């Protein structure tokens, strides 16, 4: 029995591609989970497009695939029918130079016009950084404008007063209420996907941990799963359980951090102090278990380096139970504080329909009433045994996102207990160290604390990475944030923002 994601590829002719995607979108009731291109001009003379949907019933990924002529790559835009495809098309436009016809928005995302010259597409195989460095950039970014009497714009960032990632927010406001919010991200674009193409799968595991630091373990886990799926490696049960435990520990420390952050964003100091003790205890626990506070260096292709031995188990269980105690106290404090509830209840509502249309995923989607959690779909072996149920809230406001975090924290503690029991019967070895590299392509995915991290990877026969597409839950959820703040007042934005707590590096890549 293997914990490897299943995927079905459907080949479509370019002119049938849009229709096929739309059909799947409707039939599977799935937003575009990821949508990307691959440069195969040298081998086949084409760009290949992949549009990925999630089939919840069959518990599988459904991928629609097509080839576009390398000389003149154009495709009908899907984003008019499926809004969730829009950002991916903009990304492919700037990275591969593929034209999406009739697209409502063709502006670049991460390669800012002020610094990046036109006509240089970094994810093409024949891209030369030196030429791009010599060319002169031109043009300016054009924000969506709201006109009308009394409307003014508030530009915020990319440099902020706190120590957070860089992002630019352009508010159009009438007095305090926000009429429109547009984000401009990409300031931490490092060329992650291109850098993957210079690596062997073995080396790339540690690199994958650095994509988004607060999800280091989830990223390396998703990446390893992708490679394992290509190599046909069956991961030992012990490794699957240990991975699941660490995924939950990562979730717990991040949820504690966010709950504290939401309190501090409304100036509520004491709960934040409590939450930071929880986070610190969990990070210290991570260090005791693995030698790394952020669980780096644990995952390897074929399993895990770290083990949770018999003597470590009491430490693990004591720590999570203590964390649960403090979180319960914190939950009580926050829910009984009138001033705090007044701030979070009904603030920053993301409607279910909007969330579904935008393709919002993960925690934010569950807070808006969309029941979707990859743990329920793919990880039956471990999570099924723990009787996992996704935490869902209906309201879609800041309070709902807070409660989802509390519920998931609670569930994680319960599941870690159960998983620790399962470890006893799960064999000795957590690592299958022997494998033969193979050529192939596969999706590795995991429900990280923010939402699904999806990594599609292709290797050549020696295990070198040919293409690695990373999809962070933040990528689509940033749009969700933009819609959730509409009609709220500007001073409530930081709170809404924290309730999503999206990643800059994961989005910018």
């Amino acid at each position: 029995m293997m914990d490897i994601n299943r995927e079905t590829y459907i080949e479509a002719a370019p002119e049938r591609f849009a229709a096929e995607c739309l059909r799947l979108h409707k039939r599977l009731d799935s937003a575009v989970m990821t949508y990307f291109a691959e440069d195969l001009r040298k081998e086949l003379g084409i760009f290949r497009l992949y549009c990925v949907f999630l089939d919840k019933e069959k518990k599988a990924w459904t991928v629609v695939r097509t080839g576009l002529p390398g000389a003149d790559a154009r495709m009908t835009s899907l984003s008019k029918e499926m809004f969730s495809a829009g950002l991916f098309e903009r990304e492919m436009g700037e990275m591969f130079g593929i034209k999406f016809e009739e697209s409502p928005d063709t502006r670049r995302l991460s390669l800012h016009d002020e610094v990046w010259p036109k006509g240089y597409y970094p994810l093409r195989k024949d891209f030369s950084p030196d030429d791009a460095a010599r060319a002169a950039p031109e043009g300016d970014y054009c924000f969506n404008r709201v006109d009308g009497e009394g409307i003014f714009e508030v530009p915020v960032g990319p440099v902020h007063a706190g120590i957070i990632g860089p992002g630019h927010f352009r508010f159009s406001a009438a007095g305090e209420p926000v009429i429109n919010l547009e984000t401009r991200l990409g300031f931490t674009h490092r060329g992650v996907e291109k850098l993957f193409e210079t690596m062997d799968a073995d080396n790339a595991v540690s690199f994958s941990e650095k994509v988004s630091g607060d999800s280091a373990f989830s990223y390396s886990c998703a990446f390893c799963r992708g490679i394992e799926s290509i190599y046909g490696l069956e991961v030992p049960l012990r490794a699957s359980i240990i991975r699941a435990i660490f995924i939950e520990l990562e979730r717990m420390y991040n949820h504690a951090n966010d709950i504290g952050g939401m309190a501090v964003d409304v100036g509520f100091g004491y709960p934040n102090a409590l939450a930071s003790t929880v986070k610190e205890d969990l990070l210290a626990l991570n260090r005791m278990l693995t030698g790394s506070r952020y669980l780096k260096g644990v995952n390897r292709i074929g399993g895990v380096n770290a083990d949770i031995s018999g003597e470590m188990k009491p430490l693990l269980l004591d720590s999570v139970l203590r964390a649960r105690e403090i979180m319960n106290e914190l939950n009580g404090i926050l829910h009984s504080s009138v001033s705090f509830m007044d701030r979070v209840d009904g603030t920053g509502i993301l409607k279910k329909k909007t969330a579904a249309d935008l393709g919002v995923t993960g925690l934010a989607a569950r807070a808006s009433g969309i029941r979707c959690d990859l743990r329920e779909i793919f990880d039956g072996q471990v999570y099924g045994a723990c009787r996992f149920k996704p935490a869902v809230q209906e309201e879609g406001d800041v309070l709902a996102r807070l409660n989802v975090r509390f519920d998931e924290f609670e569930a994680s503690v319960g599941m870690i207990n159960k998983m620790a029991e399962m470890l006893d019967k799960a064999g000795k070895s957590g690592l299958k160290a022997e494998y033969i590299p193979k050529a192939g392509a596969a999706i590795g995915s995991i429900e990280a604390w923010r939402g699904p991290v999806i990594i599609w990877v292709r290797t050549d026969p020696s295990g070198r990475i040919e293409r690695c597409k990373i999809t962070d839950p933040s990528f689509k959820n940033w749009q969700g944030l933009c819609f959730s703040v509409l009609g709220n007042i500007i001073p409530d934005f930081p709170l809404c923002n924290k309730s999503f707590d999206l990643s800059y590096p994961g989005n910018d890549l």
Partner: protein
Amino acid sequence: MKYLLVALQIVVLIAVSPFITGLIKKIKNFIRLRKGPGVFQPYYDLAKLAGKEEVISRDTSWIFAFAPYAVIGSVTAALLLVPAFGPGISLNRAGDLIAMIFILAFGRFFMALAGLDAGSAFGGMGSSREMFISSLVEPVALLSVFAVSLNCGSTDAQAVASYGTFRFSTLVATGALFAVTIAETSRIPVDNRETHLELTMIHEAMVLEYSGRSLALIELASHIKQVLFFSVIAAVAVPFGNYAVKMLVIAAAVAALEVSMAKMRLFRVVDMMSFSFVLSVIAVVISAMGY
């Protein structure tokens, strides 16, 4: 002799004012299980700022340069009217409690203009919010001062301070004055001095463009303003007991309030201030009835 005492009082109060801020911070951090900076940190901050180069936007006018002096001038002048160390030690001939409130309005007026002056979005946002809050706070301040004045038949700070009998209306008016103090000193739940979130700021957003010596002046002015409002409660509204002890009690109360609740949503401040307004009206009414 009196003028010497007044001069001594103002020098001591200004010298002590950053300490009060540091103390409140220390208490807050203690409750939050943190060590935090020492109580003298505000002094170091002022010294640091005073020694720094000042950056002034090319687009500003004379108002931007003048506003810090207007602010520190107005709070100092207002402080001269408060008999903090005992009845008799204030410039009571120069103005009464009503004058004090309007002298403060002068400084605020220039501060709000300066916020707009540089033309940045935050400054304008801060100024607009500050004026919004102050339009709610000033009536409450005036009415609660009226209530305590009615008790002794004079709006003169010295007369109020030396009025020895405790009356129920004083208590109610002090409640309203405390709300005013919270708002005027940019404390939670109205504003948050410690926040790094530029979008939620009120006072801090307005002074975001300032740096160096001007910022030091503005910071010092807000320390003094805090002492001023604490003193109004400690020396004028409740003229019993030891002044220093009362100041510490107020500081502790402010600190405890700050950690024990979240900041209000901006428009909720209306509710809080209208509640305080009602409180001050009640104070006036029961004072007129003789309680």
